[in-house]
């Protein structure tokens, strides 16, 4: 039997290697408390990664996810701060996220604009809309009126911090969706070969719309969890490089940008690898710039190993990379 190393197993191996060596040589790393903190610190990234995975498996990309993370939750906080009741504000925020996902999906599935450009533009639009009309300040504070939702990001269940529980919850929901729900299974078909999917009669366009709606809703969810945890929503996060981290977590975990491959486990592995790196470097008190160097080197190793072990073949050559 021929054993073939996939990107997923390479990254998993790298993760295990780093984990074991940090556990052995870095005092304080392997404690349960620290490991929970480790996952908690990357939980938002992981939740967003789940949304991104749905889209990437369907051979798309959603660059606007940080806008969905920042703007609808920021708007929610602002409305409540202005004195609106939580329930109605929540419905409005949900509606904003839903409409945003529908617009993304419609443009990509029906108007057939490439997903990269569509979501780049719509993300800018939503972020600009938020800054111009929806928020008073870039950082929207968590006010007492929001406390009805505080359980989404604060406290812990059986010692596990809530953001980690939420990450697990989203992972389970996404796993069930991708494996057991018909629309989820269709996403693989569409991602693998959209034309064949259409020829066999799959509802390609509606499923693509669904992908972006789900991504937008997951963004809203991640945003509310994040705001509850941090105590405010810094909407300026849209200007940060966080979207690259989200793409990175997905691609590093082994979900190819060419679509049709991978699943929830890949996102979890990618997220954990980033988490271990960040956590260990914080413990070692590594400087800011050096952290970037280390991150870059580890990523390069992962990509290099993949391209050596799995060289370009006919199929990948035809599909090309982004």
């Amino acid at each position, binding site marked *: 039997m021929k054993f073939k190393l996939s990107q997923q197993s390479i990254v998993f191996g790298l993760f295990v290697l780093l984990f074991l060596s940090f556990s052995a040589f870095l005092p304080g790393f392997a404690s349960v408390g620290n490991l929970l903190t480790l996952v908690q610190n990357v939980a938002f990234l992981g939740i967003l990664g789940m949304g991104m995975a749905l889209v990437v498996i369907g051979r798309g990309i959603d660059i606007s996810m940080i806008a969905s993370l920042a703007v609808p939750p920021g708007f929610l906080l602002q409305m409540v701060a202005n004195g609106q009741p939580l329930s109605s504000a929540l419905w409005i925020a949900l509606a904003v996220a839903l409409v945003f996902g529908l617009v993304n999906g419609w443009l990509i599935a029906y108007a057939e604009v490439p997903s990269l450009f569509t979501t780049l533009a719509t993300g800018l639009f939503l972020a600009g809309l938020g800054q111009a009309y929806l928020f008073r300040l870039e950082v929207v*504070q968590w006010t007492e009126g929001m406390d009805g939702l505080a359980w989404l990001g604060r406290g812990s269940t059986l010692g596990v911090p809530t953001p980690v529980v939420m990450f697990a919850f989203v992972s389970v929901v996404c796993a069930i969706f991708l494996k057991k729900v018909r629309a989820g299974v269709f996403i693989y078909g569409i991602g693998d070969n959209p034309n064949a999917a259409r020829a066999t009669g799959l509802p390609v366009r509606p499923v693509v719309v669904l992908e972006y709606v789900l991504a937008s809703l997951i963004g809203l969810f991640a945003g509310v969890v994040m705001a509850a*945890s941090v105590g405010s929503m810094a909407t300026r996060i849209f200007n940060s490089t966080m979207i690259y981290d989200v793409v990175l977590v997905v691609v590093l975990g082994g979900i190819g940008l060419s679509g049709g491959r991978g699943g929830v486990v890949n996102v979890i592995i990618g997220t954990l690898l980033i988490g271990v790196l960040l956590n260990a470097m914080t413990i070692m008190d590594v400087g800011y710039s050096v952290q970037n160097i280390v991150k870059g080197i580890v990523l390069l190793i992962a990509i290099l190993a993949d391209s050596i072990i799995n060289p370009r073949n006919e199929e990948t050559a035809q599909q090309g990379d982004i």
Partner: protein
Amino acid sequence: MSFYRFRSETLTPEETSMKHANKWIKGAVTGALILSSGVALAQGKGLDEPFRDGYKKALAGKVVGYIPVAMGFDLGIGWYEGLKKELEPHGMKVVARDPNWSTSAGAQAMTALIAEKPAAIVLHNPDVQTYAKLIRKAEKQGIYVVQINMRSQQPSTAFVGADWVDIGEMTTAATIAACQGKSNKIAIVQGAPTAAASAYTLKGVENVLAKNPQVKVVSNQAADWDASKAKAITQTVLKQHPDLCGIVGFWDGMDIGTAAAVKEAGLQGKVFVATSGGGEQSGACDQVMNGSFSYNVSYDVPTQASNMASMIKWLVQGGVKPGAAKQNIYTTLVPLTKENAGNPGACWKLSKK
């Protein structure tokens, strides 16, 4: 002193009645004088103050450009509102350009403003380098440049702002004082390492640390002015060092996250959190009162705005050529603790939109 505070002079009833009595006496005396001599009416004419015309003419219609690093946060809005309040009643116009955290957009805005030839430009530098050449160009073309809070390596006619080294020294000294008799382990949460404000503050921190060798810095990390990053770093540090006695943060907008991590670890009140900021009510005083911050050095934004406005009023009357003098006005720093943060006027409020 500042424009958001309401300061009323209240009078006791006795004083009020005395005032009334005085008025009556004055009125009676004046009436008697007028009656006694009709000539006095002509002599009661006002005297024109000889200097106000020149002042009014110098200010009227002048334009002041304003480029912060972004408008969407308490400092950016606070300075803008302060400048408008002080300058617009004198017929000056304040025009703002919002680069929204982009240095290239800021440089473009500055170039465009120079071409419009305003009387002065108020500039908030994102770093020491970006606007250096443009500042020189503006002053060469006769535009006064007033730098605010974060300076460029190129000095201009005036700099108004916080002394960051001082801030670093104050926050660190307070933290070390709170650490006495405890573990003496402290953590530092920097802003963006490329920003001058962050680097100068760090210098102040180092100055104090050099005199206190018993203090151990267990973590010295940059959180990029980002609250969620600050929270992540602090969480990890607190897990490693649950006996940490204090944290020196570099900006209250970011240290909301630092404080959230301390609170989540159940260490609020046990870990001293020192930070600094513009002294806005919800970001500073409220957070000190609810225990998130133990110590917050405020560089009171309204005072800074009024300092800038006075400088500009003085400059546009002429007399000093742009760039001929290069002086600094360092803001008086006010440390906010539970003792004074609850006092009326300790912080300022953003006006409602």
